[in-house]
């Protein structure tokens, strides 16, 4: 069992859980994910690691309560325990293996969307701790849905906010802000990392391709085991079929077949919808 030591609501339906998992905290690096089961009946849900602390042996995950499993997870409180938390899975971000002197000559632009902002944080934090400058764009529908802005401000060189309705920062999509930085503010970037909804990553990749800006995306494909066994997370990258869990989760955004990836992500949506309805009835119907 993995005890929840801290729970915090970050926005509507978005919660942060800090969980005791000393072995995972000890081995985690930016870019990796964990598989979480709420209880013995729960699904194995892949979630990107939002933070890890070797000093107290905790791992932080950020969850958006959208399906039955994520809602069950978010219904737990401090002192409760998750049945299972396995990881860290997947490969760490590429930059952790690049020599620092080379890395420090690069300028990174992170584009974070929605709940995908959480896994961007440990990446920018790692770069900041290693003296590498990174700018960050956080996008959300509206100001109240923004998460991790204070934490990000502490580790980012420049932080930009973009909201669809203009309630905070730049009015428009993150792709608009990317264009604005490059075209109007004369910024130059060597690497872009985009993490967020699949549709956002697709359009960020389309945008950066115009500028020849290499772009890494972190895919949140469907998975069962997360260790290479099931193949549910198959993704086409440059015409080759790869497994998100063992070959990723980060891939070259200019080579990912996003349309296929989005279609595959919806594979169980009908059944999930039914399960959600059933769960709602059981929880609220009586």
């Amino acid at each position, binding site marked *: 069992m993995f005890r929840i030591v801290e729970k915090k609501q970050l926005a509507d339906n978005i919660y942060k859980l800090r969980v005791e998992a000393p072995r995972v905290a000890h*081995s985690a690096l930016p870019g990796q994910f964990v598989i979480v089961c709420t209880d013995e009946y729960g699904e194995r849900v892949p979630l990107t690691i939002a933070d890890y602390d070797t000093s107290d042996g905790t791992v932080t995950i950020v969850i958006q309560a959208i399906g*039955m499993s994520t809602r069950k997870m978010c219904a737990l409180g401090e002192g409760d325990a998750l049945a299972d938390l396995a990881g860290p*899975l997947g490969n760490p971000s590429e930059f952790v293996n690049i020599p620092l002197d080379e890395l420090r000559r690069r300028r990174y632009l992170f584009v974070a969307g929605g709940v995908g902002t959480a896994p961007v944080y440990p990446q920018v934090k790692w770069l900041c701790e290693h003296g590498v400058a990174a700018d960050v764009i956080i996008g959300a529908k509206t100001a109240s849905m923004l998460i991790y802005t204070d934490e990000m401000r502490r580790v980012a060189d420049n932080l930009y906010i973009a909201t669809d309705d203009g309630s905070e920062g730049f009015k428009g999509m993150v792709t608009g802000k990317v264009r604005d930085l490059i075209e109007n503010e004369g910024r130059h970037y060597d690497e872009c990392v985009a993490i967020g909804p699949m549709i956002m990553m697709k359009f960020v990749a389309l945008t950066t391709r115009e500028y020849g800006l290499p772009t890494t995306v972190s895919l949140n494909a469907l998975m*069962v085991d997360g*260790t290479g066994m099931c*193949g549910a997370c198959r993704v086409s990258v440059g015409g080759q079929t790869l497994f998100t869990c063992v070959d990723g989760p980060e891939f070259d955004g200019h080579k990912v077949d996003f349309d*296929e990836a989005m*279609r595959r992500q919806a*594979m169980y949506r009908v*059944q999930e919808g039914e399960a959600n309805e059933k769960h709602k009835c059981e929880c609220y119907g009586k």
Partner: protein
Amino acid sequence: MANKIPRVAVREQDPAVRATNFEEVCYGYNDEEACLEATRCLACRRPRCVEACPVNINIPAFIAEVAKGDIAAAAETIAADSSLPSICGRVCPQETQCEGSCVLGVKGEPVAIGKLERYVGDWHLAHGGGGGRIAAANGHRVAVVGSGPAGLACASDLAKMGYDVTVFEALHKLGGVLVYGIPEFRLPKDKVVAREIDTLRGLGVRFETDVIVGRTVTVDSLMEEEGFDAVFIGSGAGLPRFMGIEGENLNGVVSANEFLTRANLMHAYDEVYDTPIYVGKRVVVVGGGNVAMDAVRTAKRLGAEATIVYRRSEAELPARREEVLHAREEGIEFRMLTNPTRVLGSDKGWVRGISCVRMKLGEPDGSGRRSPVVIEGSDFDIECDVVIMALGTSPNPLLKRTTAGLETDRRGCIVTDDAGATTRQGVFAGGDAVTGAATVILAMGAGRRAARAIDEYVRGKYSEAK
């Protein structure tokens, strides 16, 4: 001497009923049936069954004990060579091993060695399991990677020798392929697998789930930071193969591993569990091994019309004969000498069928089986909404990537000597991780062999130190 008693038939669930549930197909022998079947054994002076058994169980001896009604003695006889009789009695391919060599099989039906082994194993579990002498604790620690048959067998023997053993399992449940792969209707999880694991707990073996060796910890960290004297790798062969044909990434194409893991490990067929499974109306399973049979019979139980597509003929089906027979009884359609060429998709990206060609058998290939050859112009389509690929599996490359000095061959299998020692000092391996996908009994045998090698290695290490 001719044998007058016919082979005692084993009682099974009615096919029409069992095709709608996940209860075990075979009920096994009761005391009288087992005793009667045991009297059929001729107690050959040179028993060919023993030679044909991958771990050389003293078959005539345990059968004689069953005939006498001394089941405890029979259990002890089997335990000298096998740790998991309840499991092997259910899943071993007896027709190509012990029973395939039985003298009685020449003119009639061989002794039902598998069913008798299962009877003894189940009797033993029902009477508390365990057994075997346990040496005093020697203070040395061994880590076992993976809780499948190889790991369990290795852990059991080491614990009996007095070692302090910890088994690390990547998934959230123990048992490896016995739990995620083999369905409940063939191998009951609570009644058999969980009890075998409890027996190990009784021997003092510790288990840690949710630990992926190569990610959560490494072989190096286990030996250098956590103080394990040796490591046994029994991580199996879990990576599924796909055909590489067009349309394989359509929604509705899954590996047998995914389909079976959802059903077996995640209990997707049970409403109380949250994991979904998509079965559709018509399922095509590609492949002819035990995993293909497990997948197709699971699909049938979940309400689909289910078909096996296999590129060779029935004689070459690698599955256990009993599984093929059971599948037929349950109404599975078999399309032999048929090979898929393309998965057909709807405009929304879901499977709507599979294009195949007919095959004929040509010259024998490297495996000795006649290799299938395409009949040109024989293309045809099968309508279906789910395609399950059961084409075999290969070992996970994670341990090789994260363990310096651990050699693997070009198939990704870990290289070991006959005793199970890898190219890395103090690290041993056995089972599918070494051989590629094989059988439970071979994995179990390899785990036990490695336990002896580990004992020798650790003793050597400490006598040198003195």
